[in-house]
């Protein structure tokens, strides 16, 4: 058993499940209905993905625009499962089945636009088995930027942030290119950390610190989830280092940091910033990251960052792309992309992600993601885990990529191999703790019985691709990588407190400027349950 929250590192133990939860050893008089012999197997809690674009407007645009992606990957209906399709942007049912088949039991949609929140929840209602949650996007919405620009009181800003979490049924706050999505609507094409949004006169730095403070003051467990400025721009490692300083010691999560770790050295003016970034992450315990590893092949990038998705449209493959300005709230950009191992830049991106995994010391502060589907579809996680756990496999792969990229990378010199315990931390214990999911990510009494059991194979890719058993809420839902039972997961939300007075201001604002009424913008608990995705779990604020 690997249960890092309880410090259990590969010990042999019994687990008892009762009514969907893990429980202590029952009295001898209690009849045990069923026994699973897990000798010689590896047992972990169900895995948790803290950053995966699984539901909402931009994912659906990605699906709509890529019939060619789906034709190659049809999912047939069975007696218990629905049909579907899609490799890089799978349909909702396929998303739920594939995650569950890999032993994942909770997934968080990282970019829920408040204006599109109802849609995101409706889609996630059709993602079966796994638990879901979402971060609400703020920091490019007119209401917030207006408050910030006019120097509104901190408590008012907190009320607004809290109101958004309540109204959109979110579990955290994300900011994407702070102020930059808005700036693009005013025809600004780039926005550095200390550059001002021309309309509001505020900087990304101000936005970041204001939101990070609000998140902390509201007691939201997950730190402000940041997709920083200058994504994908060579030289952005300096922006990222500045962003870490801009946090001023407050908790901050830097998403898909691989895309923010680029230098400008070398003939091609593109180099790895992994050493600097890892050093800064190691030195600043308030910072957590997820990697956003890229893996080679066709995928589609879907992001709220219209400014940089627009800039990146020239690399669209196939050549089609969508940019959308949304509701004075945010935006979205969808650009299909093919990562090639024989491209210098793509090969280096691959090494940069892996370098970051290996150079950041504390597995409690680094999470395994591909920023699905931006770096690669989530189904490539088992392959990625093997790259982390198996140095000779990694070096074999390194020898197949673009020669010069391999030559300039320090990857070959990094000996570190992740242990099963570290994998259990970064894919279970740490995400649960970071999200504030009280009864997920561990195997102690009281935890939901979300349990994944693997065969201890030397080939870690094969091992993590098809767990022997996956239990969700105590039900055996997958066996040897195949769904055998379909249930509905829950939606995790927060209900931080706020002064209801803010609704007066908001109602007036909605009546004047929006195109829907405030009451219709808000999502009720009942709606989420009525959509059919099981129940709501309200996690507590700190």
């Amino acid at each position, binding site marked *: 058993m690997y249960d890092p929250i309880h410090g259990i590192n590969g010990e042999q133990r019994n687990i008892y499940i009762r009514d969907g939860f893990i429980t202590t050893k029952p009295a001898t008089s209690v009849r045990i209905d069923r026994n699973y012999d897990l000798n010689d197997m590896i047992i972990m809690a169900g895995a948790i993905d803290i950053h995966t674009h699984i*539901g909402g*407007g931009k*994912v*659906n*645009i990605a*699906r*709509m*625009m890529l*019939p060619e992606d*789906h*034709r190659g990957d*049809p*999912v*047939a*209906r069975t007696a218990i499962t*629905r*049909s*579907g*399709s*899609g490799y890089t*942007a*799978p*349909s*909702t*049912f*396929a998303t739920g089945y594939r995650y569950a088949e890999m032993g994942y039991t909770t997934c968080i949609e990282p970019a829920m636009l408040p*204006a*599109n929140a*109802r*849609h995101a929840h*409706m*889609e996630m209602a*059709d993602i079966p088995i796994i638990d879901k949650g979402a971060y609400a996007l703020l920091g490019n919405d*007119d209401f917030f930027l207006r408050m910030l620009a006019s120097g509104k009181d901190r408590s008012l800003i907190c009320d607004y942030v809290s109101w958004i979490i309540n109204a959109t049924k979110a579990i955290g706050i994300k900011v994407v290119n702070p102020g930059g999505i808005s700036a*693009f*609507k*005013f*025809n600004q094409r780039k926005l550095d950390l200390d550059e001002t949004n021309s*309309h509001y006169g505020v900087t990304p730095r101000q936005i970041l610190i204001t939101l990070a403070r609000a998140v902390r003051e509201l007691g939201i467990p997950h730190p402000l989830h940041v997709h920083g400025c200058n994504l994908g721009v060579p030289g952005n490692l300096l922006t990222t280092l500045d962003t870490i300083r801009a946090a001023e010691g407050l908790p901050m999560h830097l998403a898909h940091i691989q895309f923010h770790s680029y230098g400008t050295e070398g003939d091609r003016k593109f180099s790895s910033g992994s050493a600097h970034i890892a050093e800064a992450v190691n030195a600043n315990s308030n910072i957590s990251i997820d990697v956003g590893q890229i893996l080679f092949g066709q995928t589609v990038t879907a992001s709220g960052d219209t400014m940089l998705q*627009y800039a990146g449209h020239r690399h*669209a493959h196939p*050549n*089609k792309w*969508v*940019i*959308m*300005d*949304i*509701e*004075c*709230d945010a935006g979205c950009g969808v650009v299909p992309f093919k990562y090639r191992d024989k491209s210098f830049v793509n090969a280096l991106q691959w090494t940069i992600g892996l370098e970051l995994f290996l150079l950041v010391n504390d597995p409690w502060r680094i999470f395994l993601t591909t920023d699905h589907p931006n770096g690669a579809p989530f189904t490539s996680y088992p392959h990625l885990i093997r790259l982390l756990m198996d140095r000779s496999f990694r070096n074999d792969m390194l020898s197949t990529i673009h020669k010069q990229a391999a030559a300039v990378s320090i990857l070959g010199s990094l000996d570190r191999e992740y242990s099963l315990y570290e994998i259990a931390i970064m894919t279970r214990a740490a995400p649960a703790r970071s999200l504030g999911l009280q009864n997920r990510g561990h195997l102690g009494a009281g935890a939901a019985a979300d349990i994944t059991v693997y065969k201890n194979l030397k080939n870690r890719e094969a091992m993590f691709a098809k767990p022997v058993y996956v239990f969700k809420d105590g039900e055996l839902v997958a066996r040897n990588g195949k769904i055998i039972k379909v249930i509905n997961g829950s939606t995790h939300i927060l209900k931080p407190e706020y002064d209801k007075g803010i609704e007066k201001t908001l109602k007036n604002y909605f009546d*004047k*400027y929006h*195109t*829907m*009424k405030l*009451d*219709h913008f808000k999502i009720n608990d009942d*709606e989420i349950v009525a959509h*059919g995705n099981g129940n709501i779990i309200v996690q507590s604020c700190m």
Partner: protein
Amino acid sequence: MNSAKHPDKIHKEVPCPFCCLLCDDLVIQNRAGILKVRENGCSRAIAHYEQVQPEIQPTIKGKVVTLKDAILHISNILKSSQHPLFSGLGTDVGGLRSTLQLADKTGAIVDHMHSTGLTRNMLVLQDLGWMMTTLTEIKNHADLIVFAGTDAVSGYPRFFERFIWNKNALFNKNTGGRKVFYIGENLDTRPGISPDGQQPVTVQCKHEDIGEFIAILHATLAGDKVNLENLSGKRLKELKLLAYHLTNARYGVLVWAPGEMDFPHAELTIQALCEMVKFINRSTRFGCLSLGGNDGGVSAVNVSTWQSGYPLRVNFNNGYPEYDPSRFSTDNVLKNNEADALVWISSFDTNTRPPKADIPVILLATPATEPDFTPDVFIPVCTPGVDHAGYLFRTDSVVSLPLKQVRVSGYPSVKHILDCVSGLI
């Protein structure tokens, strides 16, 4: 069949399901089951809300039966069908979910009554993509609006009132000074006159010629050599005027309605519009808006996409979804005898007509619907947003609104019927 229990009540902030603008400020009075639009409804909303519902029963081949028998008969037809077709699809998100579940189960083809227009858009999206915007963005930011092949108001009556001549705006402090252009023919351009009398500019042009005009405009903007000799002096002036305003807009918007571009390969015209807007965005900001997808059309595209991966015209016959935007259109499926049973769903508009077909036809439609043939089964259904709560997507495909119940109906919902049928199969 109508229930006698009607609360007498004024309902405020009612979202209207009768076009894809989903105005949500209507005030509806319910007096003994008779609805009256008290505030904010357009003529279309009034016509629908205030229509008196006939009291009719489910029928099998014209003979009155119980709801239970009608449902049983539907399930029998579908059980013996090899290739059913579910079309019309005029229902809300809940009804669409149930439709897709049953379609998956029975190996059906799925299409929507307005998909001819919606598919034109999808072909553009799947070929080169686009740059879009949404209603709140337009209301607050736009300083130039170009309508190509549509006047908006004929299909979407409150468009100007709500999004163009609105008094309050966040960024554009002079909404009355918005420049309005029309390109097309037979358009009602009167709503384009600003509150203080500023006339819109209309480029008279057959709809099938819009694409060519846009291609010349795009080339002019790009500074390419264009042969303008064939253009009349008037056309040349319009071209230059439009080019000037497109370049100098701070936030321009281009609006089309795919359902109103009814000529062969209209998707190429839409694509020309989208490519021009992409080009303009190299120097200033501009976004597109598509108006279309009434009767749950936008919702159908979205639900079908997230559940199957494809935006309608999906065939589940092989056990997994297959997409062919031409072959699996309702017209082609019926013409090519690819279906042996048709389920036609239309729970909003009473004026929609199910297509005639030489196969068993199951009609789930509003009670006032008058098909010009006798369907095998007809179950009158209630309307989402009038008789029961639900959800619909708006024309911009971003915002979805919660529909309210303002009347108690004795008619079943589409979702209820399909879930019962599903349970029997």
